């Protein structure tokens, strides 16, 4: 009798904590691990220090930007892949609706409600140059800070590519 109520109260507490964590990570901010080197050297620079090569970077993703969907050039965002809704990608916004973006093949105008994303490491990044403009509705959050490894803790700045994007 006693153990059953103890188990029940532990289960209730776990459920409550889980629900509150889920709400906070949906509405406020969450922590995400960066995989791959497509955003090198901003994330996962893979230099020779021990900590860098051991584990992936952890970043803070804020969800307040999803209220108004207002982004700026140079924001790093997390979004669902247009080809597989279960995959998430982390890239930088290079173009916003109405901008003209130049790729090696041609110049195209980013349609309403879409954005052009590119990885900082152009050589090994699958981004809008492969799958085209990304609808802003797929964005899950904006990266604001690096939380791990400790020697690179800090805020993530905006980098703009003025030479390839012409804003309206």
């Amino acid at each position, binding site marked *: 009798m006693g153990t059953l109520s103890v188990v029940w109260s532990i289960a209730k507490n776990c459920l409550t904590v889980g629900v509150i964590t889920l709400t906070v990570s949906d509405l406020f901010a969450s922590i995400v691990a960066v995989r791959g080197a497509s955003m090198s050297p901003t994330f996962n620079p893979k230099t020779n220090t021990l900590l860098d090569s051991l584990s992936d970077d952890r970043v803070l993703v804020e969800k307040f930007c999803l209220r108004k969907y207002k982004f700026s050039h140079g924001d790093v965002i997390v979004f669902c892949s247009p080809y597989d809704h279960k995959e998430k990608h982390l890239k930088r916004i290079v173009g916003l609706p109405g901008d003209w973006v130049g790729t090696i093949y041609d110049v195209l105008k980013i349609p309403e*409600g879409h954005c052009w994303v590119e990885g900082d490491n152009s050589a090994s990044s699958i981004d809008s140059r492969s799958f085209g403009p990304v609808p802003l509705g797929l964005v899950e959050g904006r990266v604001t800070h690096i939380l791990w490894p400790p020697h690179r803790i800090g805020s993530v700045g905006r980098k703009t590519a003025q030479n390839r994007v012409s804003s309206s």
Partner: protein
Amino acid sequence: MRQWRSIAREAVAQVSIVVKFLSFLHVTDSYLFSFTHVLGPSMLPTLNINGDVVLVEHLSHRIGKVGAGDLVLVRSPLDPRKTLTKRILAVEGDKVTFCLDPPRDPTRDYRSRSLVVPKGHVWIQGDNWYASTDSRHFGPVPYGLIQGKVFLRVWPPNSFGSLGQ
């Protein structure tokens, strides 16, 4: 001093009740089911022009169980702040043949066009082809934009019932 402590303790207790309640509300609303007011002419005759309240479930699209014939809520690819209610006509790999409404614009090419829906995308159309902006205008939309599946109409009460194929 002791009074402040007991007041503080009671305040924390009350706030934690509110926080727990709002969190449960959010999780139910986003991951289980929610009531949504849908309006507009693009889904006539299935949905009324003045608005219906429907019950939307948010489970199927997360496990990939939303398919052709389903009524879904989709975040608009043209404006992420708007949510559209449309029907999925085709999923990835299907071939779609469509023509834009001919009587409206005589200068527009109204011969039918075909394309194959790419991987990870769906083709959505409103039931009222004459008054709907959908995949015929903005192309197939990524599956990740789907927000939920509409399965029951709860208001107006005289048309309560499930919304089928």
